[in-house]
């Protein structure tokens, strides 16, 4: 049984995909202007799978993104200013400058932030799913893993654990061809990541990751099974990383033909074609949405740029529920030093 998408839902997804792309393009300009701190990880070409999978979730569900899932965050209510301030290390960022990129979230919002260590989110999201089951809730947990990330022990342990306990966990495995410079065939000796599902005794499925409707429907199927108590799904999306690992990397090791092949299958272009062919939208619709997004971005960016950098003292805060006194040498006091500096 396929769940059909309404025209409104399709246009919603279009908005989030376009928002993702335009925010990242803006970030890229800021990166070149030296206005962001650290690296920039783009999700160019993968906006479709991120948006469609998160769009399949419902209220009360939990989401944990990896670096290429900016679109999923937008779907779940994150706004561009949060991203800009995170990338600029501003004091108004969700982490107040303590962490960067998409490394932020809150349990109330159903957003569990990743750590950099690949794979570690999967056991954690299995735990979220376990709690949902124990507390008799309907919520499911959804997270992502790259083709490279599937080589970690944590990926295996988390999936096996979730399988045995039949937990409502959905893992979206993103085969985007590469893990940094390493092509998929040096990461695993199989063609499809979803083939691993059989070894765990769970559902596995491979879909075209640049077809948002297919990703949405496959994720809905996985979520339905999860809510029915049928356990986890390993849902593989075939897509492609259209930029380097991060912006410092020009990806010279990726054959040009591969990029050309995937360029033709760009998820945003494909959705535009679909919408036009079905008489659901035309160029004016796309222009209006783009225009609206540009205005939203400008306002949020202005806020981010005008925001102050964090007060150094914040570095000492929030390690524990209650701040213990800081152990200082008798010769220096950071507390007094801050006062002296400010």
């Amino acid at each position: 049984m396929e769940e059909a998408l309404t025209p409104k839902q399709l246009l919603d997804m279009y908005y989030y995909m376009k928002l993702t792309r335009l925010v990242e393009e803006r970030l890229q300009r800021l990166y070149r202007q030296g206005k962001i701190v650290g690296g920039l990880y783009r999700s160019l070409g993968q906006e479709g799978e991120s948006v469609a999978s998160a769009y399949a979730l419902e209220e009360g569900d939990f989401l944990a993104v990896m670096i290429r899932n900016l679109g999923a965050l937008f779907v779940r209510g994150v706004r561009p200013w949060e991203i800009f301030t995170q990338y600029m290390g501003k004091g108004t960022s969700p982490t107040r400058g303590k962490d960067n990129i998409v490394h932020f979230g809150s349990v109330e919002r159903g957003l569990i932030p990743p750590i950099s260590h690949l794979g570690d989110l999967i056991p954690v999201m299995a735990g979220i799913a376990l709690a949902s089951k124990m507390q008799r809730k309907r919520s499911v947990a959804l997270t992502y893993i790259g083709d490279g990330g599937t080589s970690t022990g944590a990926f295996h342990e988390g999936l096996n654990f979730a399988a045995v306990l039949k937990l409502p966990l959905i893992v979206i495995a993103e085969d985007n061809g590469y893990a940094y410079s390493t092509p998929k065939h040096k990461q695993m000796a199989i063609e499809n990541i979803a083939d691993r599902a059989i070894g765990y005794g769970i559902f596995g499925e491979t879909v075209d990751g640049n077809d948002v409707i297919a990703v949405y429907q496959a994720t809905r199927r996985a979520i339905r099974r999860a809510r029915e108590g049928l356990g986890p799904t390993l849902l593989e999306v075939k897509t492609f990383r259209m930029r380097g690992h991060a912006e410092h990397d020009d990806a010279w090791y990726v054959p040009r033909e591969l990029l050309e092949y995937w360029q033709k299958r760009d998820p945003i272009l494909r959705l535009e074609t679909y919408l036009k062919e079905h008489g659901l939208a035309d160029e004016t619709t796309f222009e209006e949405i783009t225009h609206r997004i540009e205005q939203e971005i400008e306002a949020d960016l202005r806020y981010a740029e005008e925001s102050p950098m964090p007060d150094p003292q914040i570095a000492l805060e929030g390690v524990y529920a209650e701040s213990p006194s800081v152990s200082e040498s008798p010769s220096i006091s950071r507390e007094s030093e801050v006062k002296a500096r400010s």
Partner: protein
Amino acid sequence: MPVLTYLEAIRQGLWEEMERDERVFLLGEDIGVYGGAFKVTEGFLERFGEERVIDTPISEAAIVGAAIGAALVGLRPVAEMQFIDFISIAFDQLTNFAAKCRYRWGAAVPIVVRGPCGGGVHGGPFHSQNVEAYFFHTPGLKIVEPATPYDAKGLIKAAIRDDDPVLYFEHKYLYRRIRGEVPEGDYIVPIGKADVKRPGRDVTILTYGWMLHKSLEAAEIIASEGIEVEVVDLRTLLPLDDETILSSVAKTGRAVIVHEDTRTGGIAGEIAMRINERIFEYLEAPVVRVTAPDTPIPFSPPLEEFFLPQVEEIVQAVRWVANY
């Protein structure tokens, strides 16, 4: 003598060891075709081939575990962690397998696990850590962290030739910023030997890694006040070179220990204890430490700068012990 960057010195040491001994091989993520995230192993694949420069899956436990296995049967693996932060995934292999083989059944595990450590480049909480303290507590491991190109080359060679597991920490802030004279050809910096990088009679600074350079700056500033600081570069953290540490502190009677790692459970505590136990009666002042505070390392530049020990704090600490 040729002048190399810290990174080039590591590369040269690795290269020469691979030329010298065909049992030496490299394994890690993106180290072959790409030449490593920081380009330490650039050109190695072309020279030594795929069998000795192995691009692995993202599997730190398997990288270190496989290195241990290969070492047990006569090879000399050098494993790279793309960032040293990811060594936590191989913690079990290192602390329970590698470190205990010799003690339990007399087997040598001559592996080197190397990778970029440390802050200063706004890498955030997971790309900036110093992990020595986790392993400092593990008998059976050795830990080195060079601060100069000369030591970087000499220590990587010593690490590869050592018959025990050696963790070799490379400070990423120093990779391209520090240059120095490096002799061509073979030489060794022995593991377990500290080095006096600046002689002085009044106060001893004990330090390593990036903090050596900050300590030398501090020593220069304080010299203008007539305080002569001796700066000892530990170079090897496990085992500590008690002889050099204690003889310097016995001479000056005053010690400041400086490390970039956080405070509680850091290496400074152990060093201070050894000074206390062995040469207490030589001390003219309490031993103090300058370290990062007990928090994760934050990302944003003002926070990170505040977190990292600064030259001014070292100067203050030296002044304080000198005037005690």
